[in-house]
């Protein structure tokens, strides 16, 4: 077991983790943050996307021990004081989620895209979300939601 210190959603944690433990399982099983979902085992689907030091990262591609000292935001940390983040709100308004399983990862990937100033057009949003798969929506409404949250005109 190895000791790691993580800040997750602004809360500091000191944990003992197995060296082989993926970050996503540290979040889910040690911290009980089950909003981050696991949809594949090849880093293809993006359901497990979280923000690590502000960058969007698939948390199945990173070991827990690699996250030592880092600042992590999961879907549970995105709303503040009960108010949805603008991307969450836009997903609701535009019906950008159906089963909701890809949604946490999709929302965080989109928030990161906007934060980095890369959501400049619908085409750019589509390219930017390439690493996050959704099987329900056909992406149409996801693109509309992200465009609204990013202030891209229709």
């Amino acid at each position, binding site marked *: 077991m190895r000791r790691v210190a993580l800040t997750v959603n602004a809360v500091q944690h000191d944990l003992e983790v197995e060296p082989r433990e993926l970050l996503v399982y540290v979040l889910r099983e040690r911290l009980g943050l*089950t*909003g981050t979902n696991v*949809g594949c085992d090849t880093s*293809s689907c993006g359901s497990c996307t979280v923000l690590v030091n502000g960058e969007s990262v698939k948390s199945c591609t990173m070991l827990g021990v690699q996250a030592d000292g880092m600042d992590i935001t999961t879907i549970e940390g995105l709303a503040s004081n009960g108010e949805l983040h603008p991307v969450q709100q836009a997903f609701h308004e535009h019906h950008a989620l159906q*089963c909701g399983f890809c949604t946490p990862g999709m929302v965080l990937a989109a928030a990161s895209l906007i934060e980095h100033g890369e959501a400049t057009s619908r085409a750019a949003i589509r390219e930017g979300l390439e690493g996050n*798969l959704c099987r329900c929506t056909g992406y149409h409404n996801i693109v509309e939601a992200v465009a609204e949250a990013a202030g891209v005109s229709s």
Partner: protein
Amino acid sequence: MSATAIGTSVKRKEDASLVRGRGTYVENLTLPGTVFMAVVRSPYPHARIESVDLSAARAAEGVIAAFSGADLAGDWAGGLPCAWPVTEDIKMPPHYPLAVDEARYQGDGVAVVVAESRALAKDAAELVEVEYEQLPSVGDVVKALEDGAPLVHSDLETNECYVWKLESEGGVEEAIAAADVVVTRSYRQPRLIPNAIEPRGLLAQVGPTGEATLWSATQIPHILRFALQLVVGIPESKIRVIAPDVGGGFGSKLDVYAEEALAVALAKRLGRPVKWIEERSENYLATIHGRDVVHELTFAATTDGKITAVKSEATCAMGAYLQLVTPGIPLLGAWVYSGPYEIPHYSVTFTGVFTNTTPTDAYRGAGRPEATYVLERTMDALARELGMDPVELRRRNLVKEFPHTMASGLTIDSGDYEASLDKLLEHLDLDAIRADQAKRRESGDPKQLGVGFSTYNEMCGLAPSRILGAIRYAVGGWDSATIRFQPLGSVQVVVGTSPHGQSHETTFSQIVADRLGVDLDDVEVLHGDTAVSQLGMDTYGSRSLSVGGLALFHASEKVIAKARAIVAHQLEVSEDDLEFASGTFSVKGSPDRTMDIKAVAFQAHAAHNLPDGMEPGLEETATYDPANFSWPGGAHAAVMEVDCETGDTRLVRYVAVDDVGAVVNPQIVDGQVHGGITQGIAAALYEEGVYDDEGNLLTTTMATYLVPSAAELPSYETDRVETAADNPLGIKGVGETGTIASAPAVINAVVDALSHLGVTDIGLPATPERVWRAIEEVRT
């Protein structure tokens, strides 16, 4: 109209938890003392199991138990059920949760390990030593029927599972013989892997008196409860199945799986809760696939383009075993080989075939995409043969009067296919597309343009129980709903459908709020738990609104009737003198004498002053068995750009006009259409589950099987035509329309883009390589 009335885009109730990451997917659930299951699977498509050595696994850290198929053979009351023996002489080989003597596909379970954590279970599973003797195997559905092909089940002495036929009375062969023009085309539709983004997952608990609870990522908690009794022998009355939040299904969770029976049986043996979460690579092997059908379709037609007969012969892969409805999937398409067209002579034959592959079963559209694909592709082939515009050919053959009884025997209640086609053409601006196409052809532009059409209909809303009985389906097609007023006026609605993304909470709340005049937020929809909802037939086949929603409508009528009797009694008027609108009963001619339905609910519970003999409470249940299928339809078009140098394709526009009857929530319906279209586009351009000839799956991860992302797709242009279905809400199903319609539109567009070069066909999916090869073939 109120802001939540039927017909308005109410924002979803489901989102509040899901958008915050507070979903209750099975993986998020745990119980004290939970242990984890891992399944050891055959790496071979076909092998005799010589021995299973569990000693190293049993000795490994954290392992609680390990079992081979033989160890558990006595635990089963029966095999995994197939509910659809489509013919009297269908071959139905036994199928137990673990293989005992022979493994018959890659992924067939041969042993199971239970340990204190998921990682330890997986570690120990790798220590199970299975000795196999490899046996000859066959992965291809056509080769499996050849003489001397390896047998999947040697005792059956054939790989043919069944032959099923549907023919209109007399004349198909005569019509073909007498036709001016006969067009026959062959098509292969590959395996599709459903890829719900949430893999399957289970948590099973069995108490000391044998009462079992199974949390499963399933579409069918009620059918699963029924089936579990047959497999594990616990009476249904002691089984509770809970489908919590479920992360997509698309048919792949419409099944009774080996792992579900294993988890319950092991929880019973071990006295501890057993959990299993499927990995994606495991999902590719162990969760059902769709399609894998080879067709030959023949049209007979007159020179002026009137189709006189359609004849289809299809060879359909079952996989190695029959899952819940495997043999019936082709039959779900059996009545739509004439699509929205009036075709007097009709013949459909399906041959079900065993192969050493993962079992097939329902995947979005189930049978109807297969039929619609070959029908709409052949419409274009016939148009080319006749030198006729494909839109004009379609128009000449569309059914124009409703109700319409088809040569295949069923009756389409409603529709206006021409109106959909007209509206599609309004959106499309076909002249501009054809002009652009002509310009590119003339200049020899490497990027050619094509437009493809698909006018379609489908039968869904599964299904009238009598018809299901007539085609040998084991259970009924009704559904049930309960509306239960609480004393202070809030409403619990209990439904027998079980959503996994379809927004039932919102849609059903809207229906109840609209009918009963209560606030949307006062309505709570309960579903997906057999202890809460005793009666139900679950969610598949675009049935939840068109069957379950109508059960809800009828329950609301019963509630209104009882409330009316209470009000009439208390206001001392005749029931006929009461009007009910917006949640309030008022006396005709005396609008100040009123009673709202919440007050009625209180009176019904207080029971101080009810009509003689009336039972207290305001709760009504309706079960609804549809008299007919639901018949959506419409017209779709795809505009494709094809790079003739690389074979790469780009979907430039996708336009869809659908008639799904009256719409409860337009935004939710559009979402269903978008998602459905996307799965059809994916089948046309990207997705193919590839087996080699022996039955080794070559596409085993999302890295080798291309589920499209946002980057591959455009935004869609959608519109509607609304013709009221023959039911009190006028509604039709919508969940599968897009998938049924879209694949042929896309491929017709690719072929159209290259037709001037002489290309007449592109195999599925139209990858750059296939497109490039098709161009090279006609060039040389």
